[in-house]
Each structure stands twice: as structure tokens, then as C-alpha cells.
């Protein structure tokens, strides 16, 4: 069940990563707040990393989240300072039900995402979901509030 659910949750990310998903799928399902805002890789992302992101997207669409995770790790090894990659990994882990890991990865993304309010907001939303999944309602609310503040200031 989780794998199927994860698939839907990834839709915005798939869209963000390169419009390979037919537009018809966009309105399929209510998109959880954790998937907003949509984060795209920076313009200076090297081609090798773009290639790996594209393949990770394909893998995720095919329901192979473990493969997507491995491909994103390869991308991180190539471009470890790229906060977008860490954010994507956080999402993939979140969808696999690894809330603690997702939170760690989102925090790592945030530590590299200075000045990128959109990405920070997206990370805080992931953190909010991860905390909620672990039963930390107060923590989730706090994270949500930070995301809201970042979103409002955008």
C-alpha cells in the first residue's frame, strides 16, 4: 500500500523534475501540502546530475523508489552541495515511510539552501510531515509554521 501511495505523492516532484508526466495526471489526486511548493533543480546543475534526476524520476514513476533513491545518491556524490538533491532524497525517503531519515535529509538541504526561501519552505513542509508521521504533533505544527512564514515572505 505504501508504495502505491508514495507514487501519487511523488507526482509534483515528477512534474517539477521535467514535465515527463502527461499533464492529464496533474489533477489526479489532491496533492498533499508537503508537495508544495514544487522545487526544480538550479540552472547551473551539471548535465550528469540532470541525467540522474531524470532517471530517478523514471524509477519513481515505475514505483521503484529504492532505485530512485540510489540514483539520487549517485547525483549527490557528484554534486554534494546541491540542496535540491538532498530535498528530493528527503521526499523519496518520506514516501518510503522513513520519517526520521527524511527529516535529516530535509534539514541537510536547508543547511545548504541559504537564501532560497522556496526550497526552505519545501523542506519545512517535508519536516512537518515527517514529524507528524512520527507522532510529534507539536513539532509538526512548529515546522508547518516555519514553512508558512517562508511561504508568506516569498
Amino acid at each position, binding site marked *: 500500500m505504501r508504495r502505491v501511495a508514495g507514487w501519487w505523492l511523488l507526482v509534483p516532484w515528477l512534474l517539477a523534475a521535467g514535465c515527463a508526466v502527461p499533464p492529464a495526471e496533474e489533477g489526479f489526486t489532491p496533492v498533499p501540502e508537503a508537495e508544495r511548493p514544487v522545487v526544480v533543480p538550479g540552472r547551473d546543475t551539471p548535465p550528469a546530475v540532470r541525467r540522474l534526476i531524470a532517471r530517478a524520476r523514471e524509477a519513481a514513476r515505475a514505483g521503484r523508489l529504492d532505485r530512485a533513491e540510489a540514483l539520487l*545518491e*549517485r547525483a*549527490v556524490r557528484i554534486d554534494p552541495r546541491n540542496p535540491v538533491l538532498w530535498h528530493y532524497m528527503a521526499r523519496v525517503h518520506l514516501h518510503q515511510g522513513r520519517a526520521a*531519515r527524511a527529516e535529516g535529509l530535509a*534539514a541537510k538541504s536547508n543547511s545548504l539552501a541559504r537564501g532560497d526561501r522556496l526550497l526552505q519552505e519545501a523542506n519545512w513542509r517535508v519536516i512537518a510531515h515527517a514529524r507528524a508521521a512520527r507522532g510529534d504533533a507539536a513539532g509538526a505544527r512548529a515546522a508547518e509554521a516555519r514553512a508558512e512564514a517562508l511561504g508568506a515572505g516569498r
Partner: protein
Amino acid sequence: MARKPTRKRRRRPGPARRTASRRRSGRRGRWPWLRHWKRALAVLLAAAAAWTVYLDVTIRTAFEGKRWALPAHVYARPLELYEGAPLAEADFRLELKRLAYRPAYIPEQPGTYSHSGSTWVVHTRGFDFWDGTEPPRIVQVQLGGGRVQRLTDAGGRAVDLVRLDPMFIGGIYPSHHEDRVLVQLEDVPPLLVEALIAVEDRKFRHHHGIDLRAIARAAWANLRAGAAVQGGSTLTQQLVKNFFLSNERSLWRKANEAVMALLLELHYDKDEILEAYLNEVYLGQQGRRAIHGFGLASRFYFDKPVGELDLAEIATLVALVRGPGYYDPRRHPRRLQRRRDRILDILVERNVVSAGEAAAARSRPVRVVADPPHGITPYPAFMDLVRRQLRRDYRDQDLTSEGLRVFTTLDPVVQARAEAAVAAQVAALDRARGLDGRLQAAVIVTSTTGGEVLALVGGRDARFAGFNRALDARRPVGSLIKPVVYLTALAEGGYTLAAPVDDSPIRIGGPGGEEWVPANYDHVSHGEVPLFVALTRSYNQATVRLGMALGVKRVAAMLRRLGLEREVPAYPSLLLGAVAMSPEEVAAVYQTFAAGGFRSPPRAIREVLDARGEPLKRFPLNVEQAVDPAAVALLNSALREVMRHGTGRAARQWFAPAGGFAGKTGTTDDLRDSWFAGFGRRHLAVVWLGRDDNAPIGLSGAAGALRVWSDLMRRLHAPPLDPPGEDGLEWVEVDPASGLRAAAGCEGAALLAFRPGTAPGEYAPCSTGLAERASHWLRRILR
């Protein structure tokens, strides 16, 4: 098979028959020995049947035992090629060499390359990675400035990303097993199989285990020659013989082998027997280590995978089948060459190869690698770590028999550089201190992203699979602990790097009335000093005072948070590193500094695949925020200062960019242990030097381990840390004498990070030209 004895038993004469036979024997009373012939025959047949059953069980057990033991195969990280990838010319050369890629004029075959100037054309082998197949392809790699400048395919089109095949670094075998590089029939060049059959057992495909004509032919030839010049054993018989290696050459033994050969053929098909033969046949000796199988022999003699043997090499190995000792290529090269050439002739006679191919092969001298790889893996220390990490999740039996494939983080190039640095520096330091070869060393190198273990050296002889000091030598870490104390102060104590701390003498009473009086390394008390100076110059008194003020328990808790995975006693002596840790444990702690406050336990394995290539388990990149990243950034700015003006400053004489790294020295009482841990943008390395008997080595951290570390970073072309940038902190030059803001005119000013609004505002006397630094400092404190 089990039916035979039953049948025999049924034939045993019953009472009625016995009477008849007695009657008959009475008639033949003249020959009493014939009286019981039937009974004797029956007993004999029963014994033979039982013996056959025994042989059957024996040979099947031997065969199955070998056949189903598919050890886990362990691979290094595959090299990723892409534009901008950091890759020095020498490193690429080494990578290709270790992967046994061969230079070729035109790289037509997978596993070959050509190279002119900075342009390399590589025909990759391809590999079935579980996250996608990498097909064999020709790529042109343009190197320059330590990077891949351009990556194109054969048609000149840009290629985004290419992965080379990962290097096989060893198997995980049951401990009772000799080492083996097991091959499967489809991995073996058909030419090797054909040559083997043509030379050793022409009728292999058709006989039932023994070849009577071959035996007769051999007997005749031997009779004529008056000596054993020819063997008539089939491959099956040779396989049986190899299962139960013994020098006994009796007829009884031969007969047993023949029966077992027949039995084997009854149970298994030709390919199964052939595969077992290829893995079992005895092909050489290295001291007490027997070289069994073509997989291992190919490594042992030619240092390449069996799939890449050429005709001359195949003929050489086939020649060795007859007598690896007699034809030992290192001792009797001429004898072996004659035998190899004879084999080539046979192959031409039997139409396995053309005369032209054979002539070309014959023109090549028999050449084997001078220094065969020792043992089962060239990386015993790293394999040890892999084995330990696997044992947390798998049973021994699964590791050695399920055909698992383990993909690790080992970077063979980094490993080679680490071994070279240890070999060069440890020998020199050993000589300089007159340690008689007893100076030992351990090194661990990890990637700052995610804590992947790139290299592990367990002792000064990196090939020796013995005591793994990188994992098992727990030694007091000395001042390596200090950054933990200072980070506690920065993260939880409200300190800044410029805050004044007291380096005056201190006595600490123990519960039993005893006193601990820590002293500074130079036995000088420095009074009030800025916090960062106490760290970069490694003042003991100031550190103990600071740690006592913070609470030893808090420091111990911080140590655990940073990555030490066990409880340490919170005694005051912890503050000066009385705690014993292994280099691996130190790396786990420093990893968190290098990763900006995010903890990732050192990991050696990326994933484990089952025999079908599906992931059984992944060990994903795992980061967990352990400490406030800002506090770690402050600490790291001080650890950089260690390299610029502090105890690590000597590194620059061996490695010019060292000033852009962060690190810390560690020295223990009476100079018994010499430590250094330091990191740049990509690599973290921890070096330990000491003696196994814990005797003094006369080396401080700066005089010993720092040298190995610097040499290693130089060999790695390791990139320094990024210059201070957009991190939300305030970077300020600080005068070490006063802890105030420095400007032009201040000597040895430190560039330090501060949380916004906490940097010293006032300028130091050196900046304004005032000479009364000391009084200024005092006034500020008194105020």
C-alpha cells in the same frame, strides 16, 4: 544407485539353495576352495556394492559442497565519468590498470583503451548494475587540470555520464575453504574450454567418466618410454583426484577414482562437471597457499580476470594442468614455454585455432606477473570492515553460499594513495626515531558527504591480513577530543570563539582524595586567552577549566551525539582525551564536523544484491542533524586556524594548500600515540601512529601523524574547504593576543566565524598602533 545392494541381497542364497549347494560341493570334494564360491562371490559383491555406495556418497558430498558454495562477491565503487569529474591523469591510469584494462592500438575489445596526450579512448566492459545496465561502449575522455574536460562517444557526441565496471575486490568465503575466485562456465572464454578438452580429454563430451582407449594409449606410450609420459585420465577423473588431493599413486586409488568418475557422470551433466573442474583444478602454489581453479590462477599468474586471457595465456594455463610445480613459470620458464608451444601445436592439429594464431601466440614469451597478489584480496583491512558490517545483517552461511553481490564504497585510487603515504612516511619516521620497524600505523579516509569509507589501512603492511588497527586499535585520543569540548561551549555554553578563557594551573580532586593536575604540553601557563587560541594551540589547562565549567557529562553526551556509539565514563580526564578510541570511531566523530553538524556513521557498503541481482538490502545515505550547523561552522573556522597558525601549521611544508583544511593534532602521554584528524571539502582522513606494545614512539601528533596525513592529501590532490561564503555567519579577522578585531598590522590574525551580532566590535591594539596590548586586554576583562 541405492537399488544395487537390495538386488544383491535378494540373490543371497536361501536355506533351500544352501542344501543344494552343499550337495553339489560334496560332489566336488576334491576342490574345497570352490565349495563356498557362491557365498564368497556374494559377500564380495555385497562389499563392492557397499563400497560403491560409500564412494557415491563421498563424491556427491564433495561435489555438492563445492558446487553450491557461491561466496559473496565484493566490489569497489564504480568510477563515474562526467564532465567536470575530478580525475587526475595518474589516477585514471591507476584505475584502468587495477581494472585490468589493457592498452591497445585501437580499443576494439571491451576492456581495452588507447591513450595519447591527455585524450583517452576507453572501450568499457559494461556492467549490469541493479539501477540500470551500463552497456559496453567506446568513450573518449579528455583530461586536463585534474578534471574530465570532455566526454564524448565514438561519434564525437557529448556523453553525460559513464560508469566503468566496478573492480572485484574479493569474495567472502567460509573460513575452512581455501581461497578461490569462482568462475561460472559462461564467464570462461570458450577457447579455454576447447583447449582444455583438446589437450586433456578429447572424448570428454562422449565418454561416461573414463576413457578406456585413452588409458590403453597412455599405457602403451608409457611402456615404450619406460616412464610415465602420458596420462589417460579424463577431466572427470582429474576432477575427482583434485577433490581428494593426495600424492598416493596406488592402483587401488586409481580404481576408486575411476569408479567415482563414473558415478559423477551418472549424477551430473557435462557442463556441471566442467564448471567444477575449472574451479577445482590445482594450478600452482604460493608458500602454503594452493592455487586452485582457473579464476584464481588467472589472477595469480596474469593479474586479470579469466574472461580476458589471450591465446598464449590460455595455452600457458592449460600447460600447467599437467604439473604446476614441474612447469612453474617463475622457476622453470623454458620448460613451461616448451610445454605451452606443444599445447599450441595440439590446438592447431585439432583445429581449435589456426596455424597463424598459434604462431602469433608462440612468438610471445611466457610472462607472468612478478609479484602475484597475496591472499584472497588486496584490501584485507577494508574487506574486514565489509565483513563486519555484513555480519550485522546476515548469517555467515548466507554470505558464503548464497551468491550475494556486495557493492562497497572502496575507492581503489584513494586506497592506493593512502597505502603509498603510509609506506613512505612511516618508514621514514621509523628510521628517524630508531624504532626498528616497530612503528605501526592506521588510516581511514571517508567522504565528507555521507561518511562513505573510501580507504582503510590497518597497518604499515597494507597487504597483510592481520590485526586491523583502523578498527581494533583503541588508543587514548589525546587532544583530538578538544574540539568536542569547544563545540559544547559554542553550541550550548553561549561562548564565542573570541570569549576569554582561563589557562591558569588547575587541580582537580578525585573521590578518593587523589589529585589530578593537568599541565600544558609546554609547561607554561598562558593566563587569559581567547577561546579559539586555547583550541588551536591545544592548551590543556584552559580546556580542562572550560570543560569543568560546562560539565564533563555534557561533553561526554556531545561526544555520543557526534557519533561515538558507546558510553564513555565522564571523568575529568575525558577532557584531555583519556578515552580510548579506534581510528574508525574518531572518523565517525570528525565526520560530523566535516559534514557541518550532520552525523553519518562510516559505512562501507552501498547495497547487497541477491544472486538474481535484486537488492536485498540497501544502506542508504543517512544524515541526521546532530548539532546546530552554525555552531559547527564556528568550530570549523577555528579548526582551520589550527592548520594556519596552530599545531597543524607544519602541514604546509609538505602540502601547500593545507591552510585551507581543518584539523586537529592529538598526542598522548610520553609520546605513545600520534594522531591527526583533518578534512577538506571532499575527504576526511584520520591517521594514527603508535606501537602495538604501547611503548613511546617519540612523535607528537604534529611530528608524526600530521606528516602522513599531509602526504596523503597531497597524493589525493584533495580540494580544501570552500572559502567562507553565504552561510549566514559573520567572518571576522581576530587578533589572537587580545581576542579583538584585527586589521592590517596584526600578526597572525585568525579568520573566524561568529553568529550575527556576536563578533568582537572593538579593534585590537595592533590595529590602531597602540603598543599596550596587554593592558588593553586586561582593561577589557576588568570592565
